[in-house]
């Protein structure tokens, strides 16, 4: 009975989303304030029923209701309770429900803040969000309801959650990723509402900015978590695979990064308006496209969910209606948007334009690499696959160039900068960073590529701090009071830019200064590797809640001093009959020691993979810094006060 309540709640949510998609828009065209006013309560009603159905599904998981097909496919009575909860989004249907739940969350948040928007714009924004919800709710109800029952033959136990997903990283990774993905729907809705109402002044950018920064921060965290999870759970010591599923989340991130910057220009200078609107549409379209690619089975991937062509057709139709519709609207309406200010070629807007161009090129690079096999085949040229080499060779130089310019942008002033001042600072920083990087690479005997990359890193750090120092040392007040006066927005930017550099250093060093090897080890044996002594103490038998495991003990020492004890495991999950490798890890600021058990060899010997990964943590540390930067600028004071003007 209870699962049917969930199903019914979904139908009600669909009904309210339909109302939300239609009624306020009619109200807008008929200039009827009563109809416009319905947007807010309709949003809350829709969100409430989505929440109800999510809670019902959660309840089914918690109570091991295996009569529900989705539960029986993704859970097991022996599964630990927190994994039972995360199993809700372990499969296709449930992750779709999570998608819609998060969309409702964002919609409700906009509804709560609706008083900051002009009276006729707010309801249109909510209505656009309603259209997106309508699309996804109907997709779920018609092709992939999570409440389908297995009657009358109820399984006695479930098939268990995919062991790969039984992990703390996977409890929080999808929600964070979706928070980001779906959050861009708000920027999208603002853009569409602006096109519909023609209300596209600089306060439009001001409303959109905090939402975009916030979604960007979540997406950054989501991607960082995903990379970290792949690193320790897949057992290969890799942290990024240019896999279609990863690209699907990376493309909206790149476009979102461009959007965050072009919104800044639009807000401050009133230029780039139609470009910013297009970028907002583009970013959310990439989120949708990502969902399509992952769900439809068009692309094969290491961690894609089960593919189903019927679902593919439906999502494709949804994509065409949503993206095609908004681009059509854009074609008709964007011509009416005019920039109100002049554009200075030496000002900060020029640097940000460059930033936008480079980021767009990067996005298209990834998009092309991901879709190239498809395009190639449709043109009848056969089938090919594009691998990491393409992405690494094309992506890296452009990304490096982007970081070079990233440091210069903040130094320049809006509209016009004195070239001589800028040149002096840059020349000095360039020289200093090349020398510093040269010294570091020489001492650690790194190659010329490392020299180049480290130069860029030092350059960005130097210029970022120089800008901060210029800002706090000007005037008479003293450094600390002035430093405190700088807006949160500024510190957000600084943190995000420095985070970018930290990630860059991590990527560089992990690829140049890491060691890996596969060895045969018997208990009692030792091996020297990359300056460490690995001693195989032995294997013990361990029993987990839903698996049995061989757990190895490997003690690591350096020059006779004990460093750590690593316990890699080889687990056998009995319900799903799958073998999983759990790596033994010792995380460190400058290096990770990473050991995973391979196969049992003759006697009691094992094949053991050992990795020493230099600075790998920096990749994720930088990601976290970027996320904090995004949060900080979303929380800037001027967004929390009411928008100027007479809209209240």
């Amino acid at each position, binding site marked *: 009975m209870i699962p049917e309540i969930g199903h019914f709640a979904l139908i009600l949510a669909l009904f309210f989303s339909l109302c939300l998609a239609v009624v306020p828009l009619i109200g807008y065209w008929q200039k009827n304030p009563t109809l416009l006013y319905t947007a807010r309560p309709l949003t809350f009603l829709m969100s409430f029923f989505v929440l109800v159905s999510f809670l019902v599904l959660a309840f089914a998981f918690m109570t091991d209701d295996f009569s529900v097909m989705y539960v029986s496919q993704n859970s097991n009575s022996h599964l630990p309770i927190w994994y039972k909860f995360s199993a809700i989004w372990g499969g296709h249907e449930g992750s779709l429900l999570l998608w819609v739940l998060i969309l409702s969350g964002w919609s409700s948040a906009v509804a709560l803040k609706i008083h900051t928007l002009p009276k006729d714009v707010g309801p249109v924004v909510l209505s656009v969000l309603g259209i997106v919800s309508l699309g996804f709710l109907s997709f779920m109800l018609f092709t992939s309801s999570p409440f389908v029952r297995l009657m009358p033959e109820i399984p006695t136990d479930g098939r268990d959650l995919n062991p790969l997903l039984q992990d703390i990283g996977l409890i929080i990774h999808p929600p964070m990723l979706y928070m980001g993905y779906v959050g861009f729907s708000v920027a999208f809705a603002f853009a569409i509402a602006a096109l519909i109402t023609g209300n596209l002044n600089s306060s439009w950018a001001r409303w959109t900015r905090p939402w975009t920064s916030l979604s960007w921060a979540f997406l950054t965290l989501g991607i960082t978590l995903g990379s970290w999870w792949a690193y320790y759970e897949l057992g290969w010591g890799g942290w990024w695979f240019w896999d279609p599923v990863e690209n699907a989340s990376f493309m909206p991130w790149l476009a979102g990064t461009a959007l965050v910057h072009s919104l800044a220009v639009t807000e401050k200078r009133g230029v780039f308006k139609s470009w910013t609107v297009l970028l907002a549409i583009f970013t959310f379209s990439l989120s949708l496209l990502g969902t399509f690619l992952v769900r439809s089975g068009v692309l094969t991937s290491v961690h894609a969910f089960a593919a189903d062509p019927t679902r593919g057709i439906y999502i494709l139709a949804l994509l065409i209606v949503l993206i095609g519709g908004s*681009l059509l609207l*854009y074609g008709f309406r964007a011509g009416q948007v005019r920039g109100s200010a002049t554009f200075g070629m030496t000002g900060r807007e020029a640097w940000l334009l460059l930033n936008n161009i480079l980021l767009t090129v990067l996005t298209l690079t990834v998009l092309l690499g991901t879709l190239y096999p498809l395009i190639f085949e449709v043109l009848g040229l056969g089938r090919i696959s594009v691998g990491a080499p393409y992405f690494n060779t094309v992506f890296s130089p452009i990304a490096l160039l982007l970081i070079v310019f990233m440091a210069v942008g903040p130094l320049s002033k809006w509209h016009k900068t004195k070239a001589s001042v800028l040149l002096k600072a840059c020349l000095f920083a360039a020289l200093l960073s090349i020398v510093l990087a040269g010294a570091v690479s020489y001492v650690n005997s790194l190659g010329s590529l490392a020299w180049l990359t480290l130069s860029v890193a030092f350059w960005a750090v130097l210029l970022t701090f120089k800008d901060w120092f210029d800002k706090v040392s000007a005037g008479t007040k003293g450094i600390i009071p002035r430093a405190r006066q700088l807006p949160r927005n500024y510190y957000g930017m600084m943190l995000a830019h420095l985070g970018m550099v930290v990630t860059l250093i991590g990527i560089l060093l992990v690829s140049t200064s890491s060691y890996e090897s596969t060895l045969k080890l018997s208990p009692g044996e030792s091996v020297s590797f990359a300056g460490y002594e690995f001693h195989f103490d032995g294997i013990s038998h361990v029993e987990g809640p839903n698996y049995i495991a061989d757990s190895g003990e490997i003690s690591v020492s350096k020059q006779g001093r004990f460093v750590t004890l690593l316990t890699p495991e080889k687990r056998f999950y009995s319900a799903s009959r799958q073998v999983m490798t759990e790596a033994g890890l010792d995380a460190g600021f400058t290096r990770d020691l990473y050991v995973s058990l391979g196969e049992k060899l003759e006697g009691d010997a094992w094949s053991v993979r050992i990795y020493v990964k230099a600075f790998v943590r920096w990749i994720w540390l930088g990601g976290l810094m970027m996320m904090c930067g995004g949060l900080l600028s979303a929380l800037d004071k001027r967004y929390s006060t009411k928008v100027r003007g007479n809209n209240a």
Partner: protein
Amino acid sequence: MRKWVLFLPLIVFIGLGIVLYKQLGANPEYMPSALIGKPVPDFTLVTLQADKVLDQSSLPKSAYLLNFWATWCPTCEEEHAYLNQLANQGVPIVGIDYKDDQKKAQQWLSIKSNPYQLVLMDELGKFGVDMGVTGAPETFIVNTKGIIVYRYQGAMDDVVWQKIKGYLQ
């Protein structure tokens, strides 16, 4: 700004939509890989008998087939008899036991007889990723110079073999 420029994103998107539509449901078995014309990627793998850790140098010096298989894969069962037949004709086959259980794999080969010159275990599927394998069975043809010349996805049988055996030269 000229008006039609604003419709450019829409036009590009429609093109993309057509590509995606055509691709839905298409799933041909023939899949050339980016590795064609390239040597077999580096690896270190353990033999199924679990007695040795091997790398490239252990691969046959003649042209041979590189076959990804597993005991969990029904299609592999289907093609096994034909692989035995090929082996009897003197075609060298190297087996990669893909994401599989060692004991089961040993048992399987002792019951069904072993067509492979050499069987290596790719328990985590890492070598499979390097080779661009998307499932099992998959068969690659490697020439005398150690260069991959052909990739076939699905069960090997006489019809397929007649078409592709020329690559083995």
